[in-house]
């Protein structure tokens, strides 16, 4: 049987810019950073959860031919590809922290639901990110 999720991947337009956003803005940490010829195996992960990594993949050779890479880049920038969902212990505090770090592309400010409080944003390329504080929502002030 499968026992856990190890690596998931997202497409980004630029690995270095993605690393800067996910580490310096969002607060994740760099996982693997291995070069094999022209290819760079680059992952990010949540601090304290080393067993799950998100691989940052850039459309282009050797993964894709030129036309496929162009199609993927178009879909990324239209926000049409899948994204990531993270868990936080305090959505509103994190929202303030992210704003202070210069994050502007919020798709939803922290909002209470029956399952908790969540917020939405996009990475610099268009990928959607949700961040959820699980549990009964904190009462609105």
């Amino acid at each position, binding site marked *: 049987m499968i026992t856990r999720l190890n690596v998931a991947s997202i497409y980004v337009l630029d690995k270095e810019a993605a690393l800067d956003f996910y580490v310096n803005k969002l607060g994740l940490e760099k996982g693997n950073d291995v070069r094999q010829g022209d290819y760079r195996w680059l992952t990010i992960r949540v601090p304290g959860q080393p067993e799950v990594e998100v691989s940052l993949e850039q459309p282009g050779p050797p993964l894709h031919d030129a036309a496929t890479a162009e199609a993927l880049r178009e879909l990324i920038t239209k*926000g049409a590809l899948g994204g990531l969902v993270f868990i936080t212990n305090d959505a509103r505090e994190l929202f303030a922290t992210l704003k202070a770090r210069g994050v502007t592309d919020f798709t939803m400010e922290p909002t209470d639901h029956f399952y908790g409080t969540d917020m939405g944003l996009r990475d610099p390329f268009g990928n959607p990110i949700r961040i959820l504080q699980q549990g009964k929502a904190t009462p609105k002030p």
Partner: protein
Amino acid sequence: MTRDAEDLNRRLLRARDAMDRTYAEPLDVPAVAAVAYVSPAHFSRSFRAVFGETPHRYLQRRRVERSMFLLRETERSVTHICLDVGFSSLGTFSRTFRQIVGETPSAYRRGHGPIVAPHCVQLAAMRPRLTAAETRRSSSFGEAVLAAPA
């Protein structure tokens, strides 16, 4: 696709996000176009080329989706819900709702209860699809049909 086109996509996506975020406010084309750094004259055409429908129609379907949510999840009156989601006229709301959903807000409320799914899933998946008639009208922008999640 050039890098310029990718940059335009990203800016138009930002404008679309702004509509999703501030649908309840009075929005006009110049304000939303400004989010994308596109002139109002070019905004609607560019938006339609990228997302398959006009920004006006996108916003209407977002507002109708949010009204469907409130009809399902709350007991607020149709008139209040109309204003909650950014329509200023009950007549326009009812007509638009019926055109997009195929039934009146009250009839929709009678037939539907709360949906247990995360908010982000509802926002993405419950936005009403283009009707067959709309699809034919926008046949030169076939991706609009594909954009409706299965």
